[in-house]
């Protein structure tokens, strides 16, 4: 329990003295309650997913075999193979029972287990979203801090303006623009980045392979970062602005601390608290950005899988991907709750 203690002086006013055992029991109860809530949410996601995707109009059997004429007998056979001939409640119970065992069904289009397809795509998405998120959060928080500390100044207006402009740009458009400029090359700018995917035919082996993938990662990652980092910047900026006027900041200054020390040791830690929650909450939005980014750059991740499934429509894959993404967001939110509890003594005592 060292982390909170460092923050405590800054958060001082609201932090009450606590007996260790009580706090631990409280923390455990809190974590369990949050976990229960998360499990409930996941359960609701499972139910919602099933019925939501049944509401989408269109016959998957027909859509799947578009441009392939089938006799009614063959269609019936296809529906039986897809499990579409059974009554909805039965399909639902089957779906839940299987989902509990980690079986997300079989893709109509790929004829393979959805869980396997998702497993294949998870790595590339984690790589893209993970790298993008780290860069976006770092960049956003850093620029947000700078902007708030010099609020109203040229730096503030410049960095906030740029980030908000990028934020309002459609991901798809930005992605294509970067692709045309930096992958194809325009005028004096050489096209040094690949136009698609995570790797090429005859990619090198060993450590060179990592470089090869990193080379492919640059443009998708920049696209993703450019579009999402503004949200971290803006949140950090506004929560730091809230702190700047606080008495404890004045006190810190009065103690004779240097400006940078006031900022780093006192204001920023407090401003980070609401930001942490938002960082986790916004992971959902990053995933959304990943769908478009992956589509533009043919990045073989979950987003692309989801996009293709919608085009299908491949119900099983849509359901599975949607569920995995939802569960990821729920887990992240729960993690944010717990983390917030650990970080902020005020939440703990409340």
């Amino acid at each position, binding site marked *: 329990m060292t982390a909170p203690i460092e923050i405590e002086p800054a958060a001082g006013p609201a932090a009450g003295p606590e007996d260790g055992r009580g706090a631990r029991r409280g923390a455990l109860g809190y974590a369990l309650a949050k976990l229960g809530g998360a499990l409930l949410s996941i359960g609701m996601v499972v139910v919602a997913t099933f019925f939501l995707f049944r509401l989408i109009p*269109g*016959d998957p059997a*027909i859509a*799947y075999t578009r*441009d*392939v*004429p*089938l*006799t*009614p*007998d*063959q*269609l*019936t*056979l296809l529906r039986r*193979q897809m499990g579409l001939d059974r009554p909805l409640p039965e399909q639902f119970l089957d779906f839940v029972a299987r989902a509990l065992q980690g079986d997300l069904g079989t893709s109509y289009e790929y*004829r393979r287990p959805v869980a396997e397809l998702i497993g*294949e*795509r998870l*790595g590339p998405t*984690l*790589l893209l979203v*993970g790298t993008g*998120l*780290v860069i976006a*959060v770092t960049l956003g*928080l850093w620029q947000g801090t700078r902007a708030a500390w010099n609020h109203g100044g040229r730096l503030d207006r410049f960095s906030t303006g740029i980030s908000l402009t990028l934020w309002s740009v459609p991901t798809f458009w930005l992605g*294509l623009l970067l*692709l045309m400029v930096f992958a194809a*090359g325009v005028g004096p700018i050489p096209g040094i980045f690949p*136009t*698609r*995917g*995570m*790797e090429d*035919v*005859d*990619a*090198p082996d060993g450590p*060179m392979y990592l*470089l*090869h*993938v*990193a080379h492919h990662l640059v443009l998708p990652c920049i696209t993703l970062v450019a579009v999402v980092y503004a949200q971290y910047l803006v949140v950090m900026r506004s929560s730091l602005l809230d702190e700047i006027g606080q008495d404890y900041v004045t006190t810190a200054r009065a103690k004779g601390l*240097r*400006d940078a020390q006031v900022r*780093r*040791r006192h204001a*920023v*830690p407090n401003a*980070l608290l609401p930001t942490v929650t938002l*960082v986790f909450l916004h992971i959902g939005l990053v995933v959304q950005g990943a769908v478009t980014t*992956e589509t*533009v*750059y043919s990045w*073989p991740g979950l987003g*692309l899988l989801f996009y*293709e499934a919608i085009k299908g*429509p491949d119900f099983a894959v849509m359901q599975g991907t949607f569920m995995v993404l939802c569960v990821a967001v729920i887990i992240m939110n729960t993690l944010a709750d717990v983390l917030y509890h650990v*970080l902020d003594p005020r939440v703990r005592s409340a």
Partner: protein
Amino acid sequence: MTRLGGRLAALGLALSLAAFPATAAQAGQARAQAVQEPAEGKRIVRLGAIQAIDSMNPFLAVRVISTSVHRWMYAYLTTPDSKTLQPSPDLAESWQTSDDKLTWTFKIRDTKWSDGTPVTAQDAAWTLNKIMTDDGAKTANGPAVENFESVTASDDRTLVIKTKQPQASMLELPIPIVPKHVWEKVPDVGTYEAEQYPAVGDGPYIAVEHKKNAYVKLKANPAYWRGAPKIDELHVIFYENPEAANVGLKKGDIDWIGRLAGPQFQALAGDPNIVQWNTQGRRASYLQLNPGAATADGEAIGDGHPALKDVKVRQAIHHAIDKKALVDQVQNGLAVPADGSIVPPMYKDFFWQAEGDTRVSFDPARANKILDDAGYKKGADGIRTMPDGDRKLEMRFSIHTEDPIEDKLAQFLTGWLKDIGIQLTTRKLDSNKFTEETGSTALYDIAISGWSVNPDPEEVFATHLCSRRPTAAGEGGGTESFYCNEEYEKLYRQQLAELDRPKRIALMKQMQEKLYTDAPIIAVYYPNNLEGYRKDRITSITPIPEDKGILYGGSGYWPVYSLQAPAGPAPSDDGGAGPFTTAVVATAAGVVVVFGLGLVLMARLRRKGDDDRE
């Protein structure tokens, strides 16, 4: 950065770093299984595809890209002739039919699979029997064997197929024949991925590597019975985004893309290295006019406008459409106005074109006269009403959402129909809803549709049969028009049994004329086949048919078999220039990033200095 911030960043970094080697390892494993040789010094052609492989198992694959790749990997019994598109020998050297037209005997070519095993009639018999007897193997080509009674190999060179009814389209079986000795070991074909490389095949190319959602690498088959292709490797590279593929072609990441949309094709103009390939296409675009939809049992279904049941109204609408204007304005001239029906003009033998009195010309005055004579009176607002009531001729035009071409077409059509007293409102539907409303529930008046036709057009004719209408339970059977006409059905049955090609063609032309004059569908234009390839990378390619035909997505393997390309740079000692350059660039990029971070850090330190001074 604060400790907290630093910790969060570290956590994130750790997570993404953890993911990175995992992915890399996965990919590394996949590649380790494949044949690894440097790409340099070889003649390679890279085809861009706007579609990923759905399955490498030919019993399951339905996407065009996959069936194309399988067509290059496995021989079929027959293949369309490169000039005439008529069935010509492939794996079957010759064939004959019995007098009752029910027994087909094929003489199988004496050749070898890529693993050296001889190809026999047993392979063909096993493949076809598998599809007939195993429901899991029916996915891709179930319909093609529906009419088969039995398939046997009477000896290694003789394949005998007995059918239930005569089947004139027998010589266009879309089925890749797979090696029995490899596939009979597969426990469940319906779930088998077929990701064993190098694959065993007998076509011009052999798949040696497939990286899912990324590429397929094929090598020339030296044992191919026609002789090995003139290039060493064919790479099929997947792009999800057509614009990105265009960029890839211009840059030279790929050498060839087929099936381009109009705007994408036009964007290639002016590039000195790119050949814009613009020829007649294999697709017909048509309007569906709800002719009074019913289920296969004859039960009325849907809510089509009653006026459209009247053939005169449908014909009047036909007269109101200026197809030439649609081609010029909607398709930017990249199509042919349709004076025929569902078979596009590229299939010279089967194509039927209306002439003389039959031809429906763009003539709004005539359309108005037809409607006036039939008793559809114009009201004060210029909209006509039904002769026997007061329902106005207000109709819906169903199109797909987010399709600018259909949007534009809708604007033209709305204007033209207004001139003849029919009010049209556009209804945009997402593609699944669209398929449902125009194919099974019949909740449409007029809709846009189209069909890509094979060298044997039998299947497109079948989409207008009575039996293709939905079942009583409302399940779609694949109708493209809800058409049901006794005469058309009779012609269809006759052509099925007509093994004499000219006679069969004559029957099919009659069917097209029937569709043209009855107008349950109105063909508006035949979109061109648009492709692009780099002439510095592809020095020669022969289309199918040879006279101004299709390169990618046609039938058979002629274009890819005919490919010629210059050799790449010779291999160098360090394993080749390509990966090396890549690495240098990637490293350079990394250095730039590190350098940037350094600058940032220095700026921070400088600021800290400023702070100290305060």
